């Protein structure tokens, strides 16, 4: 294969050429209520050729048939010539040559489909049997093993194995018109053992779904909010992380002004960074999808904006260094600037101290989802509790945080001493779900707008 790829790259007339091939197999077992939705194995093979021509632009060809790679390079080259873009300069990266394997103890490829189904069924039974008010469940087991091969005309050749194993539990409870749900998931770059033994987590989901039935919807208004680490991690990724992706600013002078390095974004306690090189996390790889080595990039340090995430193109344009954040969801897509593992650094406040002074507040836990329109954000907590007179009070439902990023970051006034990585995370930018990790401690934010009836 390597010879064919090298020959195709060499055949190119473009100023820069890369080929990325992906060959993978995934298993999925999914239950809805008592019914098995599917237990199946899918094969996915495909590739992308990307060319860049000075005086032209980017040309891209994506395909499933891995036969004639030289033809794909030609298609990409012709595309690049059909475009007249502004001059592009790719920031240099050292040529690398590496074959990356991930040793898996208990490799899921050696586990039968029947055993994978049994595991999912065990978890599903826990949800179903917890309470008659649980009317629906969605329990999935999934794994995927793909080999990604990347070669560029700059001399880089990297083959990387990308394994991932997941279980996810979701329960829907209903009483009359009141419908509630709860969700938990575990996702690891690991073998089958990593998703076994989570029976207690399944029970937590069932308990929460039932608990939310009697939880009153939160009263809308402005509150002091304590976010649990998973909610705070999503906040760091969604509300702030996307603004620090250089493709947002590199061709937009007004946006550059807004995101000017050196600007104060928060108090001295606030540090936010992205690091694709931490072993074993969902967003980790030795190299990004342009062959740039990954590493830690501080975004906010001690409250001050100090960095941003780059591809080779955005770094070239802004005369900064590539950070290893050019990532693609699959062979269907060219790499764009994406986060890897994004986190708010831990602080020194215990959870008890954090809630102690709050007369009326909200403890917002986990995120059903989050969306931002740059400086505006909206996050749905999966569940929450009222905080009254310094103590956790009852469970509340429909907790949605919204607000303006710049104001909200300034309002962060305490960081917990309990940093955690979430076990689950996807980023939907442009190309749909790409695995990422998000980490944070408990975070206290003053004066947050909570929607509600």
């Amino acid at each position, binding site marked *: 294969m390597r010879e064919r790829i090298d020959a195709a790259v060499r055949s190119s007339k473009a100023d820069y050429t890369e080929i990325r091939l992906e060959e993978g197999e995934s298993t999925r077992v999914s239950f809805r209520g008592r*019914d098995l939705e599917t*237990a199946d194995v899918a094969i996915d093979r495909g590739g992308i050729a990307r060319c860049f021509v000075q005086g032209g632009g980017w040309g891209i060809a*994506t395909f499933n048939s891995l036969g004639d790679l030289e033809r794909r390079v030609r298609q990409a080259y012709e595309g690049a010539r059909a475009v007249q873009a502004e001059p592009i300069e790719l920031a240099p990266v050292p040529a690398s040559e590496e074959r990356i394997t991930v040793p898996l103890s208990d490799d899921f490829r050696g586990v039968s489909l029947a055993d994978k189904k049994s595991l999912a069924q065990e978890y599903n039974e826990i949800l179903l049997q917890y309470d008659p008010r649980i009317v*629906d469940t969605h329990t999935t087991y999934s794994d995927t093993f793909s080999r990604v091969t990347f070669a560029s005309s700059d001399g880089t050749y990297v083959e990387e194995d990308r394994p991932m194993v997941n279980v996810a539990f979701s329960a829907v409870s209903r009483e009359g018109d009141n*419908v509630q749900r709860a969700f938990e998931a575990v996702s690891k770059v690991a073998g089958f053992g990593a998703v076994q033994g989570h029976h207690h987590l399944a029970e937590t989901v069932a308990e929460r779904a039932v608990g939310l039935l009697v939880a009153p919807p939160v009263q809308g208004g402005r509150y002091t909010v304590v976010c649990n680490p998973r909610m705070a991690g999503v906040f760091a990724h969604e509300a702030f992380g996307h603004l620090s992706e250089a493709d947002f600013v590199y061709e937009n002078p007004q946006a550059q002004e807004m995101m000017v390095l050196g600007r104060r974004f928060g108090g001295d306690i606030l540090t936010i960074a992205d690091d694709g090189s931490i072993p074993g996390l969902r967003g980790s790889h030795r190299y990004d999808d342009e062959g740039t080595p990954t590493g830690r990039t501080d975004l906010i340090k001690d409250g001050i904006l100090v960095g941003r995430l780059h591809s080779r193109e955005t770094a070239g344009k802004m005369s900064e260094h590539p950070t290893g954040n050019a990532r693609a969801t699959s062979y269907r897509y060219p790499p764009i600037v994406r986060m890897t593992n994004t986190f708010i650094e831990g602080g020194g406040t215990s959870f008890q101290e954090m809630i102690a002074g709050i007369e009326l507040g909200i403890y917002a836990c986990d995120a059903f*989802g989050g969306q931002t329109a740059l400086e505006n954000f909206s*996050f749905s907590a999966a569940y929450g509790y009222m905080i009254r007179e310094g103590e956790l009070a009852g469970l509340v439902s429909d907790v949605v945080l*919204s607000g303006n990023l710049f104001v909200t970051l300034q309002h962060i006034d305490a960081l917990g001493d309990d940093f955690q990585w979430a076990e689950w995370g996807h980023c939907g930018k442009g190309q749909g779900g790409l695995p990422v990790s998000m980490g944070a401690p408990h975070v206290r934010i003053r004066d947050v707008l909570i929607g*509600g009836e």
Partner: protein
Amino acid sequence: MLERVMQVGEQAELFEIESESTKIGFQANKLKSFEVEETQGMAARAVVEGRLGFAASSDVTAVDQLIDHVVASARLGDEIPLCFPESRPGPEVQIYDAGLAELPPPRLIEMGEEIIEAVLEADESAMVNVDLTRRVRESTLRNSAGAEVVVRKSPLSIMVAVERVRGDDVLALFEYFSTAALDEEYRDFVSRIAEKLRLGRRSATLSSGQMPVLFSPTGAPLLALPLIHGLDGKNVYRGISPMARRAGEPIFDEKLSVLDDPTLDGRPGSSSHDDEGVPRRRKALIDQGRLTGFVYDLKTAALAGTEPTGNGERGLFSPPSPSFSNMVVGAGKTPVEEIIAGIDRGLLVETPLGLGQGNVISGRFSNNLSLAFKIEGGEIVGRVKDVSVAGNIYQDLQDIAAVSVESEWVYGGIRLPYMLLSRLNVVTKG
């Protein structure tokens, strides 16, 4: 190939897709990339000793593996009283336009330039990204009952993302247009984007409270999305749809009608048959407020003991599930200008944030709005920021104050009018 799947079980089905597309990308107001895509894939289903299995592959040469996988899947599958459909005719509908399928790339580039020019005319400081994609997609469904259905479409889609940054004030729009017929409708789509930018230049303040809220077609998915979930036969069968077991009841205001309409010419969501070979048909699901039906695929219909409705849709790697072809919310009788003129103090919702987040099926919503305008004295007076709306469609849609004559396609397959709710909770910073 189908014959080989047929040898392993009593029923068999083979679904094949092939598609080719060309995409022109503009970034930051400038032409940036040219992309061609070729997609192939096949998926098999088989019923072996009454049990249903599924397998898929994007490598069309991996035939032996596909057969092994579908058999392994069926061995573990549930027993389902499902019968793949026989060959039956479906409605004739125009979704392939040779002019569109062969639209030359230079024309796509011209269209992109025209769009950017129109947006910049409305606001010269805007940063515009545009993707124009023309595609030809052919799916072939064959099964052991003798059905053979080929669906060929030529969709064109245009994505426009606009960012305007002034100091710390950001206006971001993300708009999507699609068609399967070569016409000039995209120009209206572009002028509406320009209009939003113009209106967004002025800002306004609004204090929290209960007030009339008008949802534009791009804002109304906040109300339509819970309906889509609630009318999905799978959620009905599972008992989590608040509309389950309420067929025939008046649930909403008489002004609300919802259709599933696969017979509309020129819409990418239309087709003669669904992805399981079942003929499609136009049907009312909510008729003047009364619940009249749900959408089903083969499997869910079999489990629920009802008839499939021609709404089985699938991607390559997933078994079919119920889905709308085109969801059409019926237009009303009042021109939108008249609706606005009648509002003394209220909010116009253009773009909700966090659509689909939270507990959608319950009907409750609570969303921040990335673009909303204040209406005062019967006129749109300016953009309101840091504002959110909350409600529950199962209460709020029982009393709809007005539905507009005008309606638009949003997100490709949903047609929505302007809808006015007379009292909704609005929370603002002011």
